[in-house]
């Protein structure tokens, strides 16, 4: 007799709107006001425009490091919209939209992109960390932020974002396991955009879903249509509120796609994915389906669309102006932020570099 080994996916999959904008799961339809629904659409259109501008600005050398987000708006904006301002976000490098909609000024995002220290100076009342470059580090830190909320008795939630590739890091498993072991208020969001640079998710793992990685950590795992903003919001809201009420962490996998290159630093997607695959995903576009849904309800018009586009362009221009006005960094200033009290050798080095001017 052989032992029955479980290989089937063990997680639920949630979709509220199908690709044509029809409601396919009314039980899962989140309770959002008309105004909130419009806000979701506004943010997705705004973000698409900002992304397109950022891609162009990077090509022109006016921004530095940039990882495009088009295609992932529903995952990014739907999940952030389910958080409260006091909740704390630990992002990856691609997660600029969540940070900006959580309160990070857009011009700071641009300064971060350029490689200016002002980007990382997060305003006191904004609950985020800087974009994480070291893939996986934010997941373990998220367990720590969540434990802090639990120890302090604060009803706040820590949220970490990573990609499909990020789920292969040891830190990913450690973070889930720690948060589970401490029953800490954390939500881990994996945006499975199918590729880690050029590596398809099938080469990343033998697991059928990324959400099922929650099983080994003993926490709930759920997969959601990451092109469906209502599904993402619904699943995220449930996880965030469960964590807030002491119900422990959740892992959410958003199944999505990035339309653009990995980053603007030389990646060429035609080397590793076909036009057919790209087209297939573009048919699932999060903006198109949600717009259709809202238009049918009379909640979104051509005029709304145009006004949003104008406002986004205006905001980007304004943020660029502000970013351009940031003072030039100096080496002595950077030495100053190394420690609270500068050790003697750095005092000497500071003087040496200050003298150079």
């Amino acid at each position: 007799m052989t032992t029955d080994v479980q290989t089937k996916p063990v997680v639920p999959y949630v979709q509220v709107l199908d690709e044509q904008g029809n409601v396919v799961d009314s039980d899962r339809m989140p309770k959002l006001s008309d105004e909130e629904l419009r806000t979701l659409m506004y943010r997705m259109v705004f973000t698409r425009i900002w992304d397109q501008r950022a891609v162009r600005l990077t090509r022109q050398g006016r921004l530095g490091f940039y990882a495009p987000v088009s295609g992932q708006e529903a995952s990014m904006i739907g999940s952030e919209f389910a958080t409260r301002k006091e909740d704390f976000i630990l992002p990856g490098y691609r997660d600029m939209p969540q940070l900006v909609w959580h309160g990070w000024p857009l011009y700071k995002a641009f300064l971060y992109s350029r490689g200016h220290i002002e980007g990382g100076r997060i305003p006191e009342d904004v609950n985020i960390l800087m974009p994480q470059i070291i893939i996986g580090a934010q997941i373990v830190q998220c367990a720590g932020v969540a434990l802090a909320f639990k120890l302090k008795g604060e009803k706040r939630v820590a949220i970490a974002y990573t990609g499909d590739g990020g789920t292969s890091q040891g830190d990913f498993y450690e973070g889930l396991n720690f948060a589970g072991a401490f029953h800490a208020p954390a939500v881990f969001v994996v945006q499975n955009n199918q590729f880690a640079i050029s590596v398809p998710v099938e080469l990343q793992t033998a697991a059928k879903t990324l959400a099922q990685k929650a099983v080994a950590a003993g926490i709930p795992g759920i997969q959601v249509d990451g092109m469906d903003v209502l599904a993402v919001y619904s699943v995220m809201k449930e996880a965030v509120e469960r964590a807030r009420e002491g119900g422990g962490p959740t892992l959410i996998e958003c199944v999505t796609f990035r339309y653009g290159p990995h980053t603007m630093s030389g990646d060429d997607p035609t080397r590793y994915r076909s036009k057919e695959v790209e087209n297939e995903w573009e048919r699932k576009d999060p903006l198109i389906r949600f717009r259709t849904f809202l238009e049918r309800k009379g909640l979104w018009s051509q005029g709304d669309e145009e006004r949003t586009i104008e406002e986004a362009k205006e905001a980007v221009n304004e943020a660029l102006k502000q970013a351009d006005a940031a003072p030039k960094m100096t080496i002595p200033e950077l030495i100053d932020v190394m420690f609270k009290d500068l050790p003697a050798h750095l005092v000497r080095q500071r003087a040496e570099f200050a003298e150079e001017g």
Partner: protein
Amino acid sequence: MAQMTMIQAITNALDLELARDERVLVFGEDVGHNGGVFRATEGLQKKYGPNRVFDTPLAESGICGLATGLAVQGFRPVAEIQFFGFVFEAMDEIASQAARMRYRSGGRYHCPIVYRSPFGGGVKTPELHADSLEGLFVQTPGVKVVIPSNPYDAKGLLISAIRDDDPVIFLEHMKLYRSFRQEVPEEPYTVPIGKAAVAREGKDLTVIAYGAMVRTALQAAEEWAKTRGVQAEVIDLRTINPIDIETIVESIKKTHRAVIVQEAQRSSGVAAEVIAQINENAIYYLEGPVLRITPPDTVYPFALIEDEWLPTPERVLRGFEKALSL
């Protein structure tokens, strides 16, 4: 002979060694189908198949642990760490595992692994990519650390590293990848590990450098000769663990003065080790203190200011002058 960039020389070396020895495996993040984010492994998967050149899941500790496991089973892994800034993720697998395998097993096992990785600043990478972390491995017994400064050496040193029976960390400066070409023979050849090169002869000052700073030092030396008529001798370390102190001592016997130009932060790194060894081996030939021309002891800086933080040609020349005057 062909004109090759450093990246082409590296691809060429990998190609030749994959062909020569079927125990050689090449793997890492994006190195298979995509040929690496810098294209160092371009075309190799096609030529040698996905059993020998392959993509791994995204995990540096996994990549380096995989290499150790393969090595004790007789393979000769060439593992890529996509950017050396991520080496901390793999520190245990390199420094406490592979580096100690021969010693801990009393010679029963060994790890003929090459860890290839782009490193170094001046190319406007995002944060945490450009650090010069080589100093960590100068203090790690059981590994060798090789840093070529030009295409010819890159090929010869990489072939030596792959044929070496112990772990070698092979660091490729990002700024040198495509910045210039050099005559590189098509056939395999080796450049010995542990041997420095005199990149420019001179009698007045010994300048010790490695990686991209060799170019900076050479340019400064030419400028100095032109404007001041002073002749610097530039030594390219090529291997920083172990350090070829003989070549340095020979030079100091002639010049009696030395400076080190280093891209890594000042304290406790390669420059400090070079000075310690000069102190032990050449102090009676010296007429002045050995100086370090380096960035300050801060975190690697933000992209907008990295060019000012790294040793600039002016700072290097000022350092030369100071060394001569003391």
